[in-house]
């Protein structure tokens, strides 16, 4: 199955077409096709995972010698030796480099033996006598994502059969869920950066369609348009970054080749830095990083299952995935291994705090979760920025479960109370919706990072990474950021839980617990939020035997295309001090929030009493004024004055010249006309007239008199230009 994993994205792709064309005629309006297709994809993804584990564990037997394995074609990454060798010599050294680096095996360290990715290539098109390939790249991160995407997608599909039941565009909804799943799976298996761009945009367009699912209301379509255009801004970076890498890696889109060259010095560090900065813009838009995060909270206008699947668990992590996928480029471009601060970590750090701050002032439960997602994505980017690759991907893995659980839980609540407003329409729901309540609580605890839930382990790895990795002085500042973020997370989630489930019910009517198609997915996700941390239990803990660091073992890439072979690449170790500190911080935050909300202690009404508190609140309520700047400043400016100015120039300057020239030409024409044999011109007129006889008399009336002017102009212009040629030449 490993070498045929490319079939998996095709299943939901086929499902998309089937639902689109036949969905409406089916008894369940096409949802059955979607569920079946994604279910099948999930089963196959499990098979792929099991086979991959086997592949990794047997890598030692093949001892990473790709030469040996090239025989069967699929199981090896042999450098593409039939790269065109041009005369300038650059390609030759490059080919040598690719060859050499593949042989470098740090044999002394057992963990760093290389595990060959499973790849497949097809020619997509030819250009400049070169074949541009499309392909499949199956390695640790791809296999892990395969599991996450198919699982969450399947649960969201099941959930949606209940949640969007009765919607006028039910079929359409499932069609686009399928298309999204297909595109996302295509993205994670992409072997070339070009393919990555294609899938990157396709998930974006699915996001656009699904955010705007209820497009009758203007705010929804506004949100959809905003999401798409903001992502386009980031895509400038993606297009430029891929372009720079294409040329500087010797004309290739192949991710393995680009990484191998980047890691081993085959690409100039300037090119890598510029490319990394360009790609960072794409990460900022896709993964909701400051300052391009503003679309993500608005995207909550889409149906809740969409928020869970696309805007929490899968699509928004595409940026994280891309950084991890091209980690050689980022690691070298930002000197992650030896620096103490870099753009990636800064962006992540700012997002951790900025997102968490905004989560405090939201009254819409989905907005809280959206800003929480922004903040958590910041953790992942920060982790990648400090060099903790596995921590970032592990957090991606656990976050997908507990955040999807939270979103689906919020959907379940809103299903019952018909609103997302925590302050107006919720409260006391613990009593009415016990299953939703408990799953929500478990996921919240996982998000806050209570031991032994999933979020604890992954967040802790990030903090350990920030304290241990990097050059002199380490990335300690980012560990502090992470701890403050943990404090804020615990506080805003406690507030959210309090407003939703505790106190008195403030809404109307009697809310009811949701049906099994909603609660079962919730329980599955809550279960994963409970235990997923076990996937990467640190070796520090005694007695877990062969279970230690399985996630890292199976999913972290090993080989010349990943910077793990570099001396500056280190893996952080579990640090009980940090674990204890972060736990204390989390618990004390919960405690303070408990006192504030439950016991009514603390500075209530501070915003009324203190100027500074009020100012702070205003800044947060206005989302740091980013939306003001973008919507009212940049967008309105470009759409309004700038566009109007351009059009004014068009009508008055450019067209003015044309019309002026025509007037002058007509005058000149009359003048010239008197000196030209009238018969010649008349012949032209008659000729054109009779050619158009079918057009009837109308034509003749229309043109007579005008054609003379063109004729005159033609002669005049020709004469002038001929004169120029004769005199100048």
């Amino acid at each position, binding site marked *: 199955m490993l070498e045929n994993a490319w079939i998996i994205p095709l299943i939901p792709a086929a499902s998309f077409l089937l639902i689109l064309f036949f969905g409406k005629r089916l008894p369940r309006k096409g949802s059955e096709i979607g569920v079946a297709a994604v279910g099948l994809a999930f089963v196959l993804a499990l098979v792929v995972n099991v086979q991959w584990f086997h592949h990794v564990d047997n890598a030692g037997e093949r001892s990473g010698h790709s030469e040996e394995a090239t025989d069967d074609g699929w199981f090896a990454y042999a450098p593409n030796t039939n790269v065109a060798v041009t005369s300038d010599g650059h390609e030759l050294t490059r080919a040598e480099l690719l060859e050499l680096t593949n042989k470098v095996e740090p044999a002394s360290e057992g963990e760093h033996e290389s595990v060959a990715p499973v790849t497949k290539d097809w*020619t*997509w*098109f*030819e*250009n*400049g*006598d070169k074949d541009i390939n499309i392909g499949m790249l199956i390695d640790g991160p791809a296999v892990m994502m395969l599991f996450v995407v198919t699982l969450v997608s399947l649960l969201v599909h099941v959930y949606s059969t209940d949640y969007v039941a009765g919607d006028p565009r039910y079929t359409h909804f499932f069609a686009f869920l399928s298309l999204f799943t297909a595109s996302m799976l295509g993205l994670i298996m992409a072997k070339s950066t*070009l393919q990555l*761009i*294609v*899938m990157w*945009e*396709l998930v974006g*367009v699915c996001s656009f369609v699904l955010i705007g699912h209820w*497009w*009758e209301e*203007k705010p929804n*379509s*506004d949100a959809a*348009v905003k999401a798409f*255009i903001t992502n*386009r*801004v980031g*895509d400038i970076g993606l*297009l*430029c970054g891929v*372009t720079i890498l*294409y*040329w500087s890696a010797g004309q290739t889109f192949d991710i393995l080749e680009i990484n191998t060259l980047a890691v081993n010095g085959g690409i100039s560090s300037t090119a890598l830095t510029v490319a990394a900065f360009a790609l960072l813009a794409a990460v900022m838009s896709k993964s909701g990083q400051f300052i391009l995060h503003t679309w993500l909270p608005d995207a909550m206008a889409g149906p809740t299952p969409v928020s869970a699947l696309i805007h929490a668990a899968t699509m928004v992590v595409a940026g994280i995935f891309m950084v991890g996928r091209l980690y050689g480029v980022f690691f070298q471009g930002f000197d992650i291994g030896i620096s103490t601060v870099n753009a990636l970590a800064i962006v992540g750090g700012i997002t951790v705090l900025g997102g968490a701050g905004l989560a405090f002032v939201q009254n819409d439960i989905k907005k809280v979760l959206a800003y929480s997602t922004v903040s958590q994505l910041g953790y992942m980017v920060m982790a990648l920025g400090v060099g903790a690759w596995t921590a970032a991907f592990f957090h991606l893995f656990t976050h997908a479960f507990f955040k999807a659980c939270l979103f689906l839980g919020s959907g379940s609540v809103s299903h019952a109370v018909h609103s997302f407003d925590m302050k107006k329409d919720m409260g006391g729901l613990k009593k009415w919706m016990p299953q939703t309540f408990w799953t929500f609580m478990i996921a919240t605890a996982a998000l806050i990072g209570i031991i032994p839930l999933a979020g604890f382990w992954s967040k802790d790895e990030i903090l350990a990474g920030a304290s241990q990795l990097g050059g002199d002085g380490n990335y300690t500042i980012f560990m502090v950021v992470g701890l403050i973020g943990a404090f804020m997370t615990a506080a805003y989630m406690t507030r959210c839980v309090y407003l939703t489930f505790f106190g008195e019910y403030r809404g109307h009517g009697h809310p009811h617990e949701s049906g099994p198609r909603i609660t079962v997915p919730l329980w599955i996700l809550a279960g994963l939020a409970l235990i997923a941390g076990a996937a990467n239990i640190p070796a520090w803990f005694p007695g877990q035997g062969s279970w230690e660091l399985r996630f890292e073992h199976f999913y972290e890439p090993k080989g010349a295309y990943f910077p793990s072979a570099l001396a500056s690449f280190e893996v952080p170790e579990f640090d009980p001090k940090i674990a204890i500190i972060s736990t204390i911080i989390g618990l004390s935050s919960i405690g303070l929030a408990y006192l504030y909300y439950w016991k009514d202690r603390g500075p209530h009404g501070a915003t009324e009493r203190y100027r500074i508190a009020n100012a702070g609140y205003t800044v947060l309520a206005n989302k740091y004024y980013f939306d003001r700047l973008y919507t009212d400043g940049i*967008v309105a400016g*470009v759409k309004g004055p*700038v*566009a*109007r100015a*351009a*059009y004014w120039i*068009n009508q008055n300057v*450019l*067209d003015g010249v044309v019309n002026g020239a*025509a007037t002058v030409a007509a005058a000149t024409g009359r003048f010239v006309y008197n000196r030209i044999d009238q018969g010649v011109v008349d012949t032209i007129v008659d000729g*054109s007239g009779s050619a*158009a006889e*079918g*057009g*009837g008399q*109308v*034509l003749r009336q*229309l043109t007579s008199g*005008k054609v003379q002017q*063109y004729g005159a*102009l*033609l002669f005049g*212009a*020709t004469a002038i*230009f*001929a004169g*120029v*040629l004769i005199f*100048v*030449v």
Partner: protein
Amino acid sequence: MNNNQFLTDWGLTLMVFLPLAGALVMLLVPKEEEAAHKWIALLASLASAAFGIAIFADFDYDNSKSLQFVVDKRWIDVIHSRYLIGVDGLSLPLLALTLLVVPLCIIYSWNHLPEPRNAKAFLMLILVLHTGMLGTFVAQDLILFFVFFEVVLLPMYFLIGVWGGEQRQYASLKFFLYTLFGSALMIVSFLALFFVTGGETFSIAGLAERVASGDYDISHTTMLLIFGGMFMGFAIKVPMFPFHTWLPDAHTQAPTVGSVILAAILLKLGTYGFVRVALPILPEAAVSWAPWIGGLAVVGIIYGALACLAQTDMKRLIAFSSVAHMGFTMLAIATLTDFGLNAAVFGMVAHGLITGMLFFIAGSVKDRYHTLEIRRLGGLLVKAPRLGWIFGFTAMASLGLPGLAGFWGEFPAILSTYEPGAGLSEVLFRTYMVLAALGTVLAAGYLLWLFQRTAFGTPTAEFADTDVPDVQLPEWIAWTPMLLLIAVLGFFPNLVFGVTDDHMTSVAQSIAAAAGH
């Protein structure tokens, strides 16, 4: 090689002139027989397409850089101009586009004949236009090329001037006058070229050979000037900023089918001219001109997009979007690289399909609402969901969504701009690259806002009770092939790249060689 002797000798000629023959037949049929005229026009265009398909089937794709199905006959001896036609990897995609779009336009006209109707005259003009366009794409002799290039002008002039909107007289006049102005400079360049190379041939290959041989001692200034004349002719047709102002008027006023043909094929005569005539014959001048062409192209991309944002009329917006999109094509040409030229041809085909489709949709919206004023529309998805989704699909294609055809004209253009051909400034072109990438954001902006304002939301009070029929049969027939192709080319770009690549690689190589001197 090409096996069928009859096809080799006559295929291309028949393909080009069958539409004209159809028009002559129609001349004999009385005007009242509308149905007969429609059938004759359709059959003539389909017959032409049939020969086209036969040629495509027999074409030797492994040798796409050389001319095939060449016919070389005496024509105007006194000026050494010959009836020299042939197809290669460059002509083929554009011929295919033409052969596809024109029959679809005729089908669309079945129940969309604009006022003052007169099917006979309308369809005859389209057939004449068809011959002119096909001829331009196969002509390999500059005089022949020029004749076909100009034949196109008159029918389009009448299509706009008679069947157009309220401002049709002004628009058609401007179109005719402006293009003719460029043509005048172009023909002078052709003649100058003829004389400076000894006055022996007008064949494109022959002229290129003579210029390259260095036997004729042509000064660089002369080359620049000759290129300049051609530039005017082609750039106005494309149209490039700042010579584009005829286009929005022509498009806005033209009948739907006229707009479709104008956008889908006529504009390509300009870009095609650059790649077919100007670059191969005068590669050195092309290198000198390229930074300027690239600069105007980038200005066109940004400027066209900004102008789109200021529009209140749907059709005029689409017209301005052509300025921006053709900017990408011209930028790709200005890189003078194999990748860029491939992207340019792909861009031409993609723009033809996509913008052609957008004009079809605009026409159908106008038929239903009798207005294209954006602020009066809205809720198209409620009124006519299929039409609305087709519009959404096409708008996505137009903004260059990967997986659809438009992407392959845009991204490779950006990619090749990073590393322009020999002799061109990297810094300058990399600046162009970033600006062009910025243009993709603006494109998303104007297209999505257009879509949002016309299709999303609920219908305005004015049209709340109006009955808006959804997509109808002639529309389905006319549109399905285009929509399918937009998707298919998006996933299988090699359908175009595979045909053009050999040819473009050799063009780029010869330019690089010339730039080396």
